[in-house]
Every structure is written in structure tokens, then in C-alpha cells.
């Protein structure tokens, strides 16, 4: 009902309140800024959520078995470990890393010229779990009996705080969006109050010629809602543009590389302008009702 009144823009009703370019520009600027911030908070929130989920899944489903032994025992122990892993429920795949792969892992630290074959290197076995996962305590127990040089690194020790941090970041993002919405409401309320006070005479005259509260409030509500919608649309467009041209941080960027929207999430920032307009509508409506009551 309110929205319908908004759409059937009444040119005469919009003219009864004198235009004020200054307030209009300030309202639009604030709405644009808030929308810009909201879109970034949204991107941050969604990215943090995505990262939390990806890290959670990827880390949870892969673990590493490290076998340290004298070079002559290494292959026997590796074979024993693989036998154990093959019969462990919850292990989908167990694969010993080749010498090249191990060298690639070490390269960032020691450079490409490391003579891996001449060093006493542990053998690494990459374990991929089934979605159900395996019982890591049980596996450790069996390994310690059959493969004395094996150490199971199941990442859980450092996975949890990372995922927790990403989840917290996501929560903070949503809290920010809530605060931005509240601040937008407060700002529109201030602007609407100022406009209503500045137009006390207009309101008096409108009352004298038979205008109802709804008509008078509508003239202000329409104006502030449309201004906010326009400003928020601008801010949203700028924020989306800024996200689109974010330099690609690449694989090494980790979390940074993930900031932005993916797939259907691109629809979410488009909800920001109408949501801002809705906040403005209710804020102005409330302000108008209060002022009209005082101006009896």
C-alpha cells in the first residue's frame, strides 16, 4: 500500500514541499556512502563465509602422514603404512608423494637446487578422507604398532582457529551491515526532521486547505525515499565497480583473492538500494508522524 503510493508519483503532491537542493544532495551523498560501505561489508561477509567453508572442508578432508626412518627402512615402512591406510575405514585415498612433489613442496624454502635425493628425507603420504572421515586416534594407535616412524598430521590443531576466525569475520560483516542500516535510518530521521521543521509553515497551510496527515507525510516520505534510492543505487554501482576492478591477488592471495561475489551472490548487492529505500521510508514516516502530532 505504501509502495503503491510511492509508485504513483503525484507531481502536484511532490511540489507542495519546496525543493531544497542542499538537503537533497546531502541525503543522496550519505545514502550513496552507506550503500558503498554496505556492499563492501556484504562482500567481506560472503567471502569470509566462503573461506570458512572451503578451508573447513578442504582441511578437514585431507591430512598427511609423515614417515621418518633410515633410508633403507623407508620403503618398507611406507608400504606398511599404505597397507594400514587401505584397511582404515574413512580413508578414501592414500597416495605417497613422489620425490618431485616433495621437492616442489620444499622449494619455496630451500630453492630449486636442493639435492633432495642426497638428504635423509621423510616420505609423505597424502590422505584424502571420505565425507564421513576416519577415527584419527584409532589410526594413530594402529600406526604406532605397525609403522614406528609414522606421524599423522591431521591439521585439526591449526584448522580450527582459522575457520573460527573466518566465521567471526563473517559475523562481523553482518553486524556491520546491520549497523549501516541503523545509521542510515538515524541519518534519514535527522534529515527528515530538519526538513519537516523547516517546512512548518507549509504544513500549516496544507492543513488549512484540508490535507490529511497521510497526504502531508507522503509528500516528505516520497521525496526522502526516492533520494535515498537514487543515492544508494549510485553507491552500490560504485562499490560493485570497485570490487570488479580489485587487482587479482592470485593463488598466493589466499583470503584476499576471495573478496567479491560469486555466482548468485551477485544478486545480493542489488538488494541494497531497495533496502535503503525501505529504511528511508519507515524513518521518514515515523519522523513525519511525530512532527505532525506536535504541530497540531
Amino acid at each position: 500500500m505504501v509502495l503503491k503510493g510511492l509508485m504513483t508519483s503525484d507531481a502536484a503532491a511532490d511540489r507542495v514541499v519546496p525543493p531544497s537542493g542542499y538537503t537533497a544532495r546531502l541525503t543522496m551523498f550519505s545514502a550513496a556512502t552507506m550503500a558503498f560501505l554496505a556492499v563492501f561489508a556484504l562482500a567481506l561477509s560472503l567471502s569470509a563465509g566462503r573461506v570458512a567453508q572451503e578451508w573447513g572442508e578442504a582441511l578437514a578432508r585431507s591430512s598427511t602422514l609423515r614417515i621418518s626412518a633410515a633410508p633403507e627402512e623407508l620403503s618398507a615402512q611406507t608400504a606398511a603404512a599404505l597397507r594400514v591406510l587401505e584397511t582404515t575405514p574413512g580413508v578414501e585415498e592414500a597416495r605417497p608423494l613422489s620425490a618431485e612433489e616433495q621437492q616442489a613442496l620444499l622449494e619455496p624454502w630451500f630453492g630449486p637446487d636442493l639435492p633432495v635425493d642426497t638428504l635423509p628425507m621423510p616420505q609423505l603420504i597424502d590422505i584424502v578422507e571420505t565425507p564421513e572421515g576416519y577415527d584419527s586416534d584409532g589410526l594413530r594407535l594402529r600406526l604406532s604398532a605397525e609403522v614406528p616412524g609414522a606421524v599423522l598430521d591431521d591439521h585439526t590443531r591449526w584448522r580450527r582457529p582459522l575457520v573460527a576466525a573466518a566465521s567471526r569475520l563473517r559475523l562481523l560483516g553482518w553486524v556491520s551491515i546491520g549497523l549501516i542500516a541503523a545509521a542510515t535510518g538515524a541519518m534519514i530521521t535527522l534529515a527528515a526532521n530538519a526538513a519537516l521543521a523547516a517546512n512548518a509553515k507549509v504544513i500549516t497551510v496544507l492543513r488549512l486547505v484540508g490535507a490529511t496527515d497521510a497526504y502531508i507525510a507522503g509528500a516528505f516520505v516520497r521525496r526522502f525515499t526516492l533520494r535515498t534510492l537514487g543515492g544508494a543505487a549510485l553507491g552500490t554501482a560504485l562499490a560493485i565497480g570497485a570490487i570488479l576492478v580489485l587487482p587479482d591477488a592470485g593463488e598466493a592471495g589466499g583470503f584476499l583473492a576471495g573478496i567479491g561475489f560469486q555466482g548468485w551472490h551477485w544478486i545480493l548487492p542489488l538488494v541494497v538500494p531497495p533496502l535503503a529505500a525501505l529504511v528511508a521510508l519507515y524513518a521518514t514516516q515515523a519522523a513525519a508522524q511525530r512532527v505532525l502530532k506536535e504541530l497540531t
Partner: protein
Amino acid sequence: MIELENVAYSYGGGELLTDISLGLAPATFHFLTGPSGAGKSTLLKLCYGALRPTGGHVRLFDRDVTQMDRDAVAISRRRIGVVHQDCQFLDHLSVAENIALPLAVSGQDSADERANLRELLGWVGLTGRADALPPELSGGERQRAALARAVIMSPDVILADEPTGNVDWEMSQRLLQLLVELNRMGKTILIATHDLSLIRAAKQQVQARVLRISKRRLQLAGTDL
């Protein structure tokens, strides 16, 4: 249509009006006189619900104003045309838009009404000033515009506060003519004025009752006018 019963009013100090009873029946014509500051404008404001009586009852179209909310009072004003002493225009709207304001706020902005507006502008001699802004008008032009706005909704009652205060004799006769004609069409007219010659001129055309505020009370003025 508008009834005042033992109405008293005070702006906070002593009582300005005491024990006022007045009924404005359909198609009647009234004048309200009294010295400056006697409370003529105040009485008119009571008659259109802009002020609430501090004593007694005011009824607009059979409803007690003290029991009407803001919207109800506003809506009842669509049936009461008021020429305010200080005109009450919106300075950022043109004269034509100001005159059409009652139509706009009541959602009656049709083509029919537009034609009506043009005719009305001609009537009050403001056709050439339709697009001017109110501050650009002379005192007399403002009052003519105010009268046009008061009658545009073809209200049942017209309350005019000094409608001829700033116009010359000829124009005041034209305005009176318009009000007399409206009265013949069945409208109720109440004019607050100091201008005794206006009252005399009106009495030659219609049966008018002359009321006078004196010592806070309303009296029927003598026939010596």
C-alpha cells in the same frame, strides 16, 4: 452546518470570547464586526476547527470538534472555504497552483476542475497573474487569489476574514458580488470586516445578519447600519 454553543476562548490569558452561541444555517449571509483585537479572526478560527474552544461546544456538520481527530477536521475543511486575513499561500507555488491546492490535497485534480480554475481566475481578475508567485502580488491581488482558493471546492460554507481589506471600492464590490452570487446558489457566507460600507452595499442585495463582538460577547447589531 457550523454551530457554536456557549463557546469561550482564551489564548492563555484572560478570556477573549465568552458565551458565544452562533448557528450558521444553510444559505444564510452573516457579517461579523467589532473593533480591532475584539476576536473576529479568533471566532472564525473556532468556526473551521483551527482552534478548539476552551469552553462550550463547536460542531462542524453535526460533529463536535473536540471529538474529531486532525484528519477529520482537515477533511471537514474541504466543505468550508476560508479567506484568511493573512492569505496563507505557499510562496514557492504559482498563484494558480495555490488556488488549486485544495483540489490537489483532496485528490480532485481532474480536467474539469482545471477548467473551473481558469474560469475562477477570470472571475477574480487574475488570469494574467496565474503563473506569478504570491510574493509578487499586490495586497488586493493576494486577497482575490485567497477568495478564489476559498471557493474552488464549491464549499457549503465560506468564511472570509477581511476579504476586502486591501482592495479598492470597485474591486470590493466585485468580490461582494461573487459572494452574494455564491449565497444565492445556496452557500452560507460569514464575512468578518470593519468595512461598514461593504455591509450596507450587501444589505441592498441580500438579507444579511450583522453580528458584533463587543465586550467579549456576540451581539446582533442594530438596524442603524
